[in-house]
């Protein structure tokens, strides 16, 4: 089977550079091909990179709190660019302050993200869902639905 391709980056005016570097490393180790756009990435750059690399998923990271302003309209732009089927995740500290995660998740799902990840979600969790959503889990794993336990709070769903 071909390797799946991910486009990752930190959106907006956000310069938090540590998490994305570690995600790149972890996704590569997990067998993905990764295009890491780094920090301060615009919606347009994400979309262009996804088209160019024929990516299977876009993973938007936002740490600094302006995530909610920065991702508005991104799904629509992607759809217009012909990426209707692309998987879109968002994660990090995506809103300002400590807010009930269930509500935050709802707001971002409404904006068209397939999955929304809480602060501090460990890479194992991201990888599990990527594999699941991209059809890479074998039957047994899917049935057991052995989502790795979030070690560090958070975790999706």
């Amino acid at each position: 089977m071909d390797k799946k391709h991910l486009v990752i980056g930190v959106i907006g005016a956000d310069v938090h550079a540590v998490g994305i570097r570690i995600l790149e490393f972890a996704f590569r180790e997990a067998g993905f091909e990764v295009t890491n756009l780094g920090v301060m990435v615009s919606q347009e750059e994400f979309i262009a990179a996804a088209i160019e690399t024929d990516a299977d998923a876009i993973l938007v990271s936002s740490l600094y709190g302006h995530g909610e302003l920065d991702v508005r309209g991104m799904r629509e732009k992607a759809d217009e660019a012909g990426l209707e089927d692309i998987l879109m995740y968002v994660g990090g500290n995506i809103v300002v302050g400590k807010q009930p995660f269930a509500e935050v998740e709802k707001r971002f799902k409404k904006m068209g993200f397939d999955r929304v990840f809480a602060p501090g979600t460990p890479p194992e969790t991201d990888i599990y869902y990527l594999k699941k959503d991209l059809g890479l889990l074998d039957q047994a794993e899917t049935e057991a639905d052995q989502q790795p336990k979030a070690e560090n709070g958070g975790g999706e769903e």
Partner: protein
Amino acid sequence: MSDLTAKRLSMDEFTAIQAEILTQWPTGRDVDFDEAVAYHQSLPANKIFSRALDKAKTDGNTLIQPRAGVALIPQHVKLLTYLQDEGEADLLPTTIDSYTRQNRYKEAEIGIEESIRENKSMLNGFPAVNHGVFGCRQIIDNLDIPVQIRHGTPDARLLTEIAYAGGFTSYEGGGISYNIPYAKSVPLETTIRDWQYVDRLTGLYEEAGCPINREPYGPLTGTLVPPFISHAVAIIESILAAEQGVRNITVGYGQCGNLVQDVAAIQTLQSLTDEYLRRFGYGDVQVTTVLHQWMGGFPQDEAKAYAVIAWGSAVAALSHATKVIVKTPHEAMGVPTKEANAAGLRTTRQLISMLGEQTLNTYSLKDEKVIIAAETRAVVDRVLELGEGDIAVGTIRAFDAGVLDIPFAPSRFNAGKMLPARDNDGCIRLFHPGNVPLPPELLDFHQQKIEERAHYENRKASFQMVIDDVYAISKGRLVGRPR
């Protein structure tokens, strides 16, 4: 880079830039230097930052200061009043939002409007440029203690003009420390020049009798930065600032986690900055120190976050830093509530005043001080060499060459070749030196320390070890042991 130099800006150069800067956003109009000087001179001593610092240094006290900023003026004043009264803060901040930091004042304006509409701050800080000179003065007027601008703005010239005219008496940042960790593609040459403007403006206020404290930003990326790297940057920015007329400087350091290394770092930060300033003919600059409580990833659990905050406070007290910048139990989650922010302050207050009498004097402290000093000198002296005597020029060349190299920095002008990792005691050492010019015996020392750990952990030193160290504190450890 042809014309970059560490020399003082001429008045002509300065006014030419100023004319342009003040038109970047409508509020620039309200800046009037003479009127601002009069405002500063009307401030009582208790609102002047450098006074508080100098007194603390003389008394051997450690002052406590939070970070805080929200989109709207009344809410911001309320927040700071709360931190002053309920948080027992000695010094206050006004943390600037990320759009302003990127000079995106239009987006900041939208953030202000949305914040009014949604009745909660949609910005991660206070948009001081948009609020203008008189907006800023509402902050100064309504509080009883000194207030500082804290941000992360590569081009902070307009912000500085407005902040100073608005009455702020302390200002964080520098041409290196607010570029490499905070920007992706702004040339260093540009930011050094832009910060020379900020420093010259500070000098002009100083010369007009208005003392303004300047604070190079110490922790850089906050992620496994070895002390000598941040020391080198702090010293360079101090010299650059002094040349422009700055007379009151606070050099900073982000806690690494090992008690001995941290105490040694604060103590050498003070002595080495003094030493280099004296060497450059700025012996009259008043230098103080700030310890930043752990700047890397925090544990999510508040009880555990309190532990990390408390440990940073203990280190600040035992090292007798002049001030400490305080984290909150919400750190891993998001911008804190005012209650969480005040709680972090009170935890810090308790430890600072409980431990203020104690000093540390360990065998290894002396060794560690010798090591940090030797490392720092090796780097700073190489920077000077590269600049053929001009420290501004040397800095550009040093980053180009990876002589100055900051781990995990987003800037493409940073080499990113040096890799740090913790040794077996939790001290931050070099796993891979890149092009950082440490003398052979120190390189050996670092290598040996990392090998000791690798051997203990029964694995090879690798990037996985670095990653484990990045996560360690948020997972309850200092050294990221294999799982």
